[in-house]
């Protein structure tokens, strides 16, 4: 059966009165309660969500919905400011901080009538690739509880609690990915600086879109790396991502790094002919540590395009392996600067130390930041020292240009879209993940996603197949600057070909939603 975008389906259901916004909201809220063990949400804004749902219902009754997003429950990563709702960045530094304003992207969603269910969990200040390092604890991948995973996992001993077998979501937008994956919302916002939207999307089997830098406003997104951060979009299908993108993109006078070009929301065509497409396969993305499973999937995907008549060619992005090093320097340097605003004076945690401003700041930051954040601040300050500035910071900026130029050359040679893996392996169990420290993990896990942030290019993870362990594996498409329509069209075509299976979660009583098309067909692998 043809699977329509869930937005279109659920929107149609709302328009036709088959389900009401309040009912939809209630179901999502109760599902959130039923999946609390995932720890995907930090704050659930139950009262305001129900109120928003009621307002939406009034509009539908009058026959005047604001648009496709009216009444649609969404979730937002907890590093976006949300007026009247706590915004913590999963850090002690911002516990109790109630935003006085909405981030532009949040405001846009609300203006379209979306229902904000709550704020999702993340690595502290979005630093990490596991969503394990926040003060509210790690996020659990919903697939850990899926029938698909349980069938494939062999308990090592009778006494071993299957609880300890759960796998990570990836990060840092793990809460958002888990929320979408477990059906507690229809779309979620994440952020993407080095892969933080695409990585958890791959591990949780959802679509994760990183838009071109400058397309979507960062106003109200608590910044990590100003020159690389973008708001990310997580949905269950590519069509939905296009809808959300359409409502968020465009110039924002409050963010001077958004481009001024007119953005026209688009509907994705149903591509049937890909023979005019040129797909590039960057050989350097066959990175050390890439699992043979994912390598095989990547190869199969390339063949899929070839068999459909597209031109599939191997290309080279020679500076790929330095991307992660470059990122490490630029990220820590910008972090050192961005984190300087947290001093306890105007908002957030404040230490009781009162001897001097400096000692108060130092104590506040000592108490408020975790090891990861402190480590990056200190490293960043090191690279920015006068004696190191040229050799590290400026050097990294030069390497950044080389990385960006690699992409320019490849796209100039006629390639439309690049096809790469998103992650090196499927999701690892939490117990295994925490054996290595955050920096090592980030360096390993960001390898395939990071370069797109360096170059500011749009990229998207499309869930492709299940691994041998029954966990999602995704593939990544990287497009030309501001060519989201082409990128998403290709992604949508691919999504249709691979027919990624739906997660089978006992907790999700899908018949309640009643607007699903159940995807039961031969899977890609």
């Amino acid at each position, binding site marked *: 059966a043809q699977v329509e975008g869930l937005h279109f389906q659920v929107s149609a259901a709302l328009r036709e009165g088959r389900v009401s916004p309040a009912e939809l909201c209630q179901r999502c809220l109760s599902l959130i309660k039923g999946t609390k063990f995932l720890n995907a949400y930090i704050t659930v804004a139950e009262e305001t969500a129900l109120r928003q749902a009621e307002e939406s219902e009034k509009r539908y009754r009058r026959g005047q919905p604001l648009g496709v997003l009216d009444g649609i429950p969404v979730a937002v990563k907890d590093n976006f400011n949300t007026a009247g709702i706590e915004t913590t960045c999963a850090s002690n530094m911002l516990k109790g901080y109630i935003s006085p304003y909405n981030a532009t992207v949040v405001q846009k969603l609300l203006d379209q009538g979306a229902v904000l269910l709550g704020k999702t969990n993340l690595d502290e200040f979005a630093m990490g690739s596991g969503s394990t390092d926040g003060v509210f604890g790690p996020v659990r991948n919903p697939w850990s509880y899926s029938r698909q995973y349980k069938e494939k996992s062999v308990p090592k001993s009778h006494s071993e609690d299957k609880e300890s077998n759960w796998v990570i979501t990836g990060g840092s937008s793990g809460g958002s990915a888990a929320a979408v994956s477990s059906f507690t919302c229809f779309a979620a916002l994440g952020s993407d600086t080095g892969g933080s939207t695409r990585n958890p999307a791959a591990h949780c089997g959802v679509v994760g879109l990183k838009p071109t830098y400058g397309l979507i406003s960062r106003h109200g997104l608590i910044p990590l790396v100003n020159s690389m951060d973008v708001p990310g979009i997580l949905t269950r299908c590519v069509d939905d991502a296009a809808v959300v993108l359409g409502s968020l993109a465009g110039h924002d006078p409050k963010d001077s*790094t958004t481009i001024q070009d007119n953005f026209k929301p688009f509907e994705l065509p149903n591509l049937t002919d890909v023979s005019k497409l040129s797909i590039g396969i960057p050989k350097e993305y066959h990175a050390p540590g890439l699992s043979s499973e994912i390598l095989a999937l990547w190869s199969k995907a390339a063949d899929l395009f070839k068999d459909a008549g597209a031109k599939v060619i191997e290309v080279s992005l020679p500076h790929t392996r330095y991307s992660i090093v470059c990122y490490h320097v630029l990220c820590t340097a910008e972090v050192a600067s961005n984190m300087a605003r947290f001093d306890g004076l105007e908002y957030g945690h404040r230490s009781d130390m009162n001897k001097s401003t*400096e000692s108060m700041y130092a104590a506040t930051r000592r108490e408020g930041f975790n090891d990861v954040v*402190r*480590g990056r601040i200190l490293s960043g300050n*090191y690279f920015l020292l006068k004696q190191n500035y040229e050799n*590290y910071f400026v050097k990294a900026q030069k*390497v950044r240009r080389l990385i960006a130029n690699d992409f320019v050359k490849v796209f100039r040679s006629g390639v439309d879209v690049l096809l790469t893996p998103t992650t090196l392996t499927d999701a690892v169990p939490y117990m295994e993940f925490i054996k290595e420290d955050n920096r090592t993990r980030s360096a390993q896990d960001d390898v395939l996603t990071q370069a797109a942030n360096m170059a500011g290019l749009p990229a998207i993870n499309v869930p492709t197949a299940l691994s041998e362990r029954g966990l999602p594996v995704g593939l990544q498409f990287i497009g030309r600057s501001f060519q989201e329509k082409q990128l998403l069209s290709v992604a949508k075509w691919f999504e249709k070909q691979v027919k990624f299976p739906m997660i089978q979660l006992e907790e999700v009583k899908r018949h309640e939603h009643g607007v699903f098309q159940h995807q039961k067909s031969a899977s890609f692998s």
Partner: protein
Amino acid sequence: PQVTVEVLDHLEHLALVDFRDWEGVERLQKAIQFADQLHEVNTDGVEPMDSVLEDRCLYLREDDVTEGNCTKELLKNAKEKVEEYFVAPPGNIPLPKLEERDTFLQGS
């Protein structure tokens, strides 16, 4: 090259964040080692890149007041305040020197 205690102390002053223990210092050492790989790349004649949008003009809006007057809102989040002021401890008092500070670096 080992990072000297002077540099570590200097960093704690600049960042107003402490290393806390040897693990923190080791973390920095590893970070530097990792970053050193950059020197393998030949960047002769390459200009540093500040932003991927360098070819475009930054948007400058008109210098008109469009919002503000939200003193009450903003003060809500501050822990220490008096009337419309944020209250800070006395300034112009530098952090004590290494020997007098409560930092683990003292032991080294």
